[in-house]
C-alpha cells in the first residue's frame, strides 16, 4: 500500500508514540501517587490523631501542643505527657463500651514510655535552616495557617505548600511592611545565609 520507506517511518513513529506514552504514564502515575506528592502529601500516622477534632471542634490553640513555635526554631511535636494532660481523664468509649482504639494506642505508648513515631509531613532538606520563632513574632507575625493550611479542618494532616525555595523566596521578596528599618528592601532578607549555612 505504502512505499517501504514510508512504512518504516510509520513503524518508527508508532514505536516512539507507544514508548513515550508508556514512560509518560508510568512517570505520571508515580508523580501523582499521593505518597510521592510535595503538595498533598498525607501520610498515615501511628495514631489517627485528628486536628479537626482537637483544633477545629475543641478549639485548642496550636501553641498548646506545639509549644516552642514562638521561642524556638522548632515548633516541636508535644511529648506524650502533653496528650496525657487531658487523656488521663478523657477516655471516650466507642459503641461497644470499650475505650476508643486511638486512645488505647496512646495509653499503650504512655505506659510503655515509648515515643510515638509520627510521620513527618513538613520536612526540609538538611541544608535548609528554618526558624519558626522568626516567622511568628516581631515584624513577620505570620499565622500557622499561612504555611500549614487550615489544619483545623484536616482529619489527617496534609501538606498544602511545596516548601520549595521559590515558594519561600516569593514571600521574602514581597515589599517590606510599614515601619520597617530603612535598609530593608524586601519583606525579609533574601541573601543565601538567611536559610543556608
Amino acid at each position: 500500500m505504502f512505499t517501504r520507506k514510508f512504512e518504516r517511518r510509520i513503524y518508527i513513529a508508532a514505536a516512539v508514540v507507544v514508548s513515550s506514552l508508556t514512560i509518560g504514564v508510568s512517570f505520571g502515575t508515580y508523580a501523582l501517587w499521593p505518597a510521592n506528592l510535595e503538595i498533598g502529601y498525607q501520610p498515615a500516622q501511628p495514631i489517627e490523631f485528628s486536628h479537626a477534632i482537637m483544633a477545629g471542634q475543641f478549639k485548642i490553640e496550636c501553641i498548646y501542643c506545639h509549644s516552642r513555635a514562638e521561642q524556638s526554631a522548632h515548633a516541636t511535636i508535644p511529648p506524650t505527657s502533653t496528650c496525657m494532660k487531658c487523656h488521663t481523664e478523657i477516655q471516650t468509649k466507642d459503641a461497644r463500651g470499650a475505650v476508643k482504639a486511638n486512645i488505647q494506642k496512646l495509653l499503650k505508648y504512655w505506659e510503655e514510655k515509648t515515643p510515638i513515631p509520627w510521620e513527618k509531613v513538613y520536612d526540609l532538606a538538611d541544608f535548609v535552616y528554618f526558624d519558626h520563632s522568626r516567622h511568628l513574632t516581631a515584624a513577620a507575625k505570620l499565622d500557622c495557617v499561612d504555611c500549614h493550611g487550615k489544619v483545623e479542618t484536616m482529619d489527617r494532616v496534609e501538606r498544602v505548600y511545596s516548601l520549595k525555595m521559590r515558594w519561600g523566596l516569593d514571600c521574602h521578596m514581597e515589599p517590606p511592611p510599614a515601619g520597617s528599618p530603612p535598609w530593608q528592601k524586601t519583606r525579609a532578607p533574601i541573601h543565601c545565609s538567611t536559610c543556608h549555612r
Partner: protein
Amino acid sequence: MKPERPEVLAPPSEVSRRTALQLLAASAALAAAPGCDRKPYRRIVSMAETPEYQHPGEPLDYASTWTEGQVPYGMMIRTLDGRPVKVEGLPGHPLNRGASTAAMQAAILSLYDPGRPRFPMRGGSRVTWAEVDEQVGEALRAARSVVLITRATLGPAERSLVKRFLAACPVARHFVHETVHDGPRREAWRTAYGRDGALRPCLERAKVILSVDADFLGTDGAVLEAIAGFAANRVVGEGARGAESLSRLYVAESAMTVTGSNADHRIPLRPSASLALVEGLRAALAGDRGALDRLAAQEGLDAKVLEGLAQDLAARRGEALVLAGSHLPPAVHAAVCLLNDEIGAPGATLEWSDAAPALAVDAPEAISAALAGGVDVLLLLGVNPVYDWPGGGFEELLSGAGLSVGHGLFADETVGACALSLPSSHNLESWNDAQALAGVRSLCQPVIAPLHDARQEAESLLVWTKLLAPGDAGLAALADWHDYVRAEWLGGVLAGAADARLAWEDALRQGVVGAPERAAVPPLRRSEAEELARGPLERTEGGLELVLLPHHALFDGRFAHSGWLQEFPEPVSKLVWDNALALGPATAARLALAEGDLVEVRAEGRAVTLPVLVQPGVARGVAVATLGHGRRALGAAREGGGSNAAPLLGRGAAPRFRPEVQISCAGGSRRLVRVQKTFDMHGRPIVLHGTRADYERDPRFVRERLHAPAHAQLHGEYDYSLGHKWALAVDLGACVGCGACMIACQAENNVPVVGKEECALGREMHWLRLDRYEGGDPENPHVYQQLMACQHCDNAPCESVCPVNATAHSPEGLNEQIYNRCVGTRYCANNCPYKVRRYNFYHYVKRNLSDALQELAFNPRVTVRSRGVMEKCTFCVQRINEVKFRLKTAGTESIPDGAIRPACAQACPAGAIVFGDVNDPESKVRAAGASPLAYRVLEELNVRPAVFYLARVTNPHPDAAAAAPPAGHGGPR
C-alpha cells in the same frame, strides 16, 4: 580610553549567563519526570516526657571541668537534645577565663570515638562489672602486695578516695606515673622554700620576662592563664596604651617553641649551658660581667643581647620574671629561684600556691622496685606505662603481677595487656572535682549518660574499697561515686551551707567556687638553694644533647586517638600525623642529614628510629624529639603514625633531658608531611611588624610598608551604611600562635579530617590556618605568625568567577558559600589570593564514619558537606543568625557588641580575635580598625577584605637592636 575588548565589558544583551543556566536546568528538569524529587520519608519522634529545661533543638549549657589535661580548666559544654556538641572554656573559671586549648576542644571527638571499648573484658571475652568486682575484691582480700598506679592529676575527691583505699588495704602502695611533669621544678622549690607547693608566674605584671627553655606559652604549665597574662602586655595602640606598656620577652631555648616564636630576643642555647646562663646573670647583677662574656664566647651567643638582658633584669626590679622549663634539672630551677629572688620577683611577678594541682610523680625506679618481685594485684588507673615507660620494658613488670587490672578510656597498650581490661567513662560522662589553684575548687559533672558499659576509675576504686571495708558505715552510706563527691563537697567546700541541696546545685550550676588565694612566696632558704644550684651540668663533647618535649597537641600521647589533634599542624614545624627528630640547619649539615632521613637515636642502650626534621632555630648540638606519637593501639585515628620516643626518657632527676645521645643513619627515609610548604614571605608585606622605636617614631609606620595604589573600582560599591557590616580584627601582637582557634573552628563547623596522604596532596580542610614565616639567620630566625581564614572581601575574586552563583555576597558583608548550589568547578579556590578555600575531593565525612555514634559529634546547626563541594570560613554565620534571630524575635534590631563570637574568638586565650559590627560606633572591632596599626593583607589587590590585622610591635632592647627584626618594607626575606 576605549576598552580593548568591549564585548567583554558590555552588559549581557539577549541571553545572560543566568538565563542560559536556567534554560539548561529547565530542559534537564523536563527530561526527568516532574515530582520525582520527593525527599526520603522521615519520622519526627517526641519523647514520652521531656526533662526539665530541655526543648528540642535548643542548646543547654553545663559547667564542668576538663580533667584530661595537665591542668584542670573550667569547661562549658553545650548540649543539644541531650548530646554534647561543643566544648568551650568556662567564663567564670579564674584560670582559663572562658578560653580553651585545642585538646579541650577535641574532647567532643573522643567522647564519640568508635574505638572506645564498649564493655569490660577478661582474657578477650566480655564480663560483667559484677564479675569484675568479685574477682578484684577476692584478689585484693587475699593479696599480700598491691600496687596502685594513677596519673598525677587526681582531684581532691579522688585523692581522698585513694587514702581510704590505702587505709582499707594496708598492703597496697600508691604510685604516680607521668612522663611529662614538673618534678625537677617542684623538687627545687621544695628545697628552696622548704614546703611543697607551686610558684605561680603573674605574667600580666611582668615587663621583662626571661624564659630558660620554658615553653610557657605552649605546653609547660597553665598555658591558658600564661597566654592571657602575656598577651595583655603585647598590645599597643588600644585606648590610651602607648608603647611603654610593652613587655620584653627573652627566650633562651634549645628547641624552637611557640614561646621562642614570640620572643623579642631569642637565644639558642643548649640545655647544659642553661645553668651557666642563670649563674652568669646572677654574677652580672652582682657586678661581674665576666661569666656572661665567657658564656657568650663559648656558646657563640650575641653578647649584646646578654648584656641587654642583664641590664633589663637589674633595671626592672619587681617587674621582671625568670621561668625555667620543667625538663631542666633541679639545679637550674634552684638557680632561677635565687635569680628571681635577686630581681625582686617574689610577691611582684611570682605568687605562691600551697596547693599544687598535680600530685608529686614517683621515680620509675621506685615503681620498678615495688613491682620487681611480682605483686599480687596491680591496679593501673588511667595510665599507659606500656607505651611510655622510660627506657621501655614495662611489659615484663606487668606480666609478673598476679592479677593486672587496666582501666582506661581506650583499650590502649597497657589496658590491652592486662588480665582485666576495664573501659573508663569519658570526662563528659564523669563526676569529679578539681583544684586548679589554692582557694578555687571546680566540679566536673556528666552531661550525657554513659554511652557504653563503662565506669569511671574512681567509681571502680570506690566499689573495691567498699568490698575491702564492709564495716565502714560512712562508705556504706554512699551509693556511688556521685554521692562520694557530693559528700566530700558538703563536708568540705560547702560546709556550713544553710541548705545543702541548694548549695550543691548552685555549685554545679556555676562549676567553680571560691577565688584564688593570693599567698606570699615563703622566704628563700638561700644556702639550701645555693647547694642545689651547684653546677656545672653534665654535658657532652662529641654527641648531641636530647630534649624530649610533649607534643603541642597530643601531649604525652594521651590525645593520640584524636584525628583532629593528629591533623593539627604542630605550630612550629607544621608537621601533621607524625613526629621527628628536630635538628638545627647547622647540626644537620654537620651530620650530613637531610629532612626525612631516618636516624637511630641511642641513649643508654635504648634506640629509637626517627626521621630528621631540619628546623631553623634549634640550638647547635641539640636534638629535639616530641613524645606522644607512635601509639600502637589507637581509636578512630588509625593512620596515626610517628615513632614512640618514650624509650629515650632517662631515669633520675630530669628524665626529659639527656645530656648525651648518639645518632646514626638508619638508612631509608620517611615522608614528613608539613602543611606549609614555604616559610618565606618572599619580601611581600604579609605579616607587618615593627619595633617599639618604629612605633614611637610614627604610629602609622605600617602605611610606609604597604603600597596600595589608587585603584579603579570595577565592581559596583556595596552600601553598608545601614544595617550591619561584620568584620574581624586579628591582633598579631597578642596572638601567640597556640592554634586553639583551629580546633575550635573544626569542632564548630564540622570540618572533616582527611588523613596524612591527603594532607601531603595539600588537601587539608582546616577553614582556619596559622601561617608561619621565618626570616633572618636560619640558625635563629625571627618568627611571624598569622591567622589566615576567608577574608570576606568586598571585591571578592571568588564571587566573580563562580559559574553557578554558589558564592555570593550578603548585604552584611559576608562572603557566603552555598553548598547545595556548588558544582565543584574550583574556579573560586583558584582565584582566591589568600588560598583559604577548601575542596572536598572525597566524601571525607562519610569516609571517616565507621559508626553511627560518630554522627553525634556533628554540630547540627552547620551543614555537613559532601564530595565535590567547596567550603571555607563563614564567620560562623550560624552564630550570627542565632543571636540576630533571638534578638529580633524579642523585638530589637540592635545587637550589643560582643554578643556574637565566632568559635575562634571564643576559644582564643589571648583575646587576639575580635569580631563585630563596624557600623556600631561603640564596637571593639571598629576601634581596632581605627588603630594606626591596622592593615589588610594584600591591600594592593583592592579586594577589600573584611578581616584586618593589627601589626605586631616588638620590643627589642635598644642597644641590642641589631638582633631585632629589620624594619624594612615587607619584613625580612
